[in-house]
């Protein structure tokens, strides 16, 4: 009896097991090519991946998302080790100069015909992604960070400042005017600060200048003789020294809390920041924010590129995917759904894009504001060693806000550290 049962069980197993193995094999279709796409933060790509898989049966797309710093430092170690990198990797413009020095570790996208796509992007965006006189294409542009100014209508009203977009914009044609509005605001409102941090203001002002820390002509360190750097430092540091900033760093937990509690009234906001403010502020702050023109009219902050590390196994397939993700049709959808600003004129001048408004930000005509910002943009030149120098000035402004140093001391120390770093 027992033996019979055992025997039958064994027979059943003998039949079922191979079947299970067979179906298991059928499930793992070997013909499929798996492409990994590594991004950070918000790219809004997930639905696009699903669609791409549906229209390209042989392709499976895997997404790998990490935070900003881990993503780029991880890429550096993967490039150094020769393996581990995704097939398609996003690189932010701030890190681009660092990786441009290792262009041989990336696929030259010109080999796959990227040069024919050139006309899609605004010229400066395209230029950022190429090297070697334009012959080597390192990356295809994704979004850009067209700059506007986000402000709290309720806090402006409490300070007896105008709340209407056009009137607010008229308050600050220049950054010097912006600093004067900061004084007016701070005189009237004591339980909220005028801006988030001196660092944000500084970056916004500096990015409007054509040259920052390095001369466009010969890539020499020029922070000490470029008046634009000093001007940005003085205006932003002045606002910080007067205690008119909430002293919170973008993306950090204190920043999120400050947004939620309405601890500051303005923040220079690249297009991609709107979603972050909305997430941080939550439903209870809907309609309290608005968006208007930034002092100096335009600017750019951030924006990424899709690159292909050479170590990947499927260059052709990865290129097709990257080209599809950055194509005008997809860029338009990313803007309409997630507010990710396109870097292609045909898209940001598209009537659907220009006509779009943002309900969370008091129905501000964000499409129009950011498109105008993009059109009047003067792209700035970033030296090869920009990433080594840039943080020193942000830290210096932090010391001014903390009251540890005067503007003059902080500037001297930052300049010293920066020139030591590039020596």
């Amino acid at each position, binding site marked *: 009896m027992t033996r019979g049962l055992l025997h039958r069980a064994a027979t059943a197993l003998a039949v079922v097991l191979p079947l299970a193995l067979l179906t298991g094999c059928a499930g793992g279709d070997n013909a499929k090519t798996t492409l990994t796409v590594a991004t950070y933060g918000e790219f809004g790509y997930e639905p696009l991946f699903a669609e791409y898989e549906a229209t390209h049966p042989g392709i499976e797309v895997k997404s790998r998302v990490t*935070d900003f710093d881990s993503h780029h430092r991880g890429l550096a170690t993967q490039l150094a080790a020769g393996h581990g990198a995704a097939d398609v990797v996003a690189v932010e413009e701030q890190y681009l100069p660092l990786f441009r020095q290792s262009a041989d570790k990336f696929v030259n996208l010109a080999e796959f015909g990227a040069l024919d796509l050139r006309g899609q992007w605004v010229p400066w965006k395209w230029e950022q992604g190429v090297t070697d006189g334009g012959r080597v294409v390192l990356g295809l542009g994704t979004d850009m960070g067209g700059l506007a100014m986000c402000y709290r209508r309720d806090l402006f009203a409490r300070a007896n400042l105008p709340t209407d977009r056009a009137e607010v914009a008229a308050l600050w044609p220049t950054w010097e005017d912006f600093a004067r509005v900061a004084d007016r605001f701070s005189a009237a409102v004591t339980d909220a600060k005028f801006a988030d941090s001196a660092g944000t203001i500084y970056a916004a002002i500096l990015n409007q200048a054509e040259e920052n820390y390095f001369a466009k002509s010969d890539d020499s360190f020029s922070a000490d003789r470029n008046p634009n750097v000093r001007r940005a430092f003085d205006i932003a540091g002045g606002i910080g020294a007067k205690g008119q900033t909430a002293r919170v*760093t973008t993306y950090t937990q204190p920043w999120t809390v400050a947004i939620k509690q309405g*601890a500051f009234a303005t923040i220079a906001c690249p297009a991609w920041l709107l979603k972050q403010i909305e997430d941080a502020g939550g439903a209870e702050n809907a309609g309290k924010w608005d968006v208007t023109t930034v002092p100096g009219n335009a600017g750019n902050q951030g924006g990424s590129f899709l690159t292909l590390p050479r170590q990947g196994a499927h260059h052709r397939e990865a290129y097709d995917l990257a080209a599809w993700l950055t194509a005008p049709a997809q860029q338009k959808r990313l803007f309409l759904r997630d507010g990710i600003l396109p870097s292609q004129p045909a898209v940001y001048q598209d009537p659907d894009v220009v006509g779009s408004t943002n309900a969370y930000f008091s129905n501000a005509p964000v499409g129009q504001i950011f498109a105008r910002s993009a059109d009047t943009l003067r792209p700035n030149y970033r030296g090869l060693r920009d990433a080594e120098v840039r943080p020193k000035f942000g830290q210096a402004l*932090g*010391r001014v806000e903390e009251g*540890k140093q005067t503007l003059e001391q902080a500037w001297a120390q930052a300049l010293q550290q920066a020139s030591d770093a590039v020596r």
Partner: protein
Amino acid sequence: MVLAWAARLAAPARRQRRVVLLARLDARATPLLFVAPFFVLFAVFGVFPLAYTAWISLHDWQLVNGDQGFVGLANYAALFTDPHFYNALGNTVSMLVLATVPQLFAGLGIAALLNRPLRTAVFWRAGVLLPNAVSVVAVTLVFAQLFGRDFGVANWVLDQLGVPPVDWQANRLAAHLAVAATVTWRWTGYNALLYLAAMQSVDQELYEAAELDGASRWRAFWAVTVPAIRPTIGFTAFSATVGGLQLFVEPQLFDVSGLGGIGGTDRQFQTITMYLYEKGFGVFDAGYAAAIAWVLALLCGGCVLVGLGLVRRLARRGRL
């Protein structure tokens, strides 16, 4: 064993001599084969990285682009004149002392409490180890919020006591204290358990004798318990020092800028390992970072030697 089996197959004529030879080889080689995995792993994951790091530190080596040429000891020469390195060294030692001393004393106290008859003793004993089992990143992020400038609990408590709020990240000493608090919270229980284990093997007769002599509980603790568990105290002080020299996650994440941070706006709480990370993975200067790594390793080695010397001296004087 393998060799013994092989020996059995040998031709019968010279069998006798072979067996003797192989048996001797067996006795010599087999133990070595058994311990070999450790040494192979140690060579691959211990010796090789050390040697390779030393090799990198002698070059101008960029993280992504690799070797840019041999520079000899130039990285070390630059390091020894680098004020940021000495700043990091000072911060590391400061946080090491601030974290280790309370950690060991609190551990002793908790162990003494746990060593008394307790209800649900297992619960309490397992409980003190809990902070050590929680992810260090999670612990650090929570402590960074507790020590927040605007909405932190620590400042709220100070406010209730009428003390003005502290800018924990900006102030050097305050930052060191906050980081030390994080480290202490994580490791006190671990040390307490080690002490407890040692305390339980202390001869009960010593306590009885002390009691007969009229010693108070307090006196017995310092005169009997502490001397008896001195080797364990030595070990914990030792491992806390080496661990403290390599302090990284707690201070790095205490900086609101996260991985991009340099320990505050003026490196006020940047440790040696953080400086290594900034150089190696922030600006991709692997050669310089490798030099820092080696200097740090030598520092740890120096501490170990000094510690061993102390232990030996104590042992010779019959104290251990």
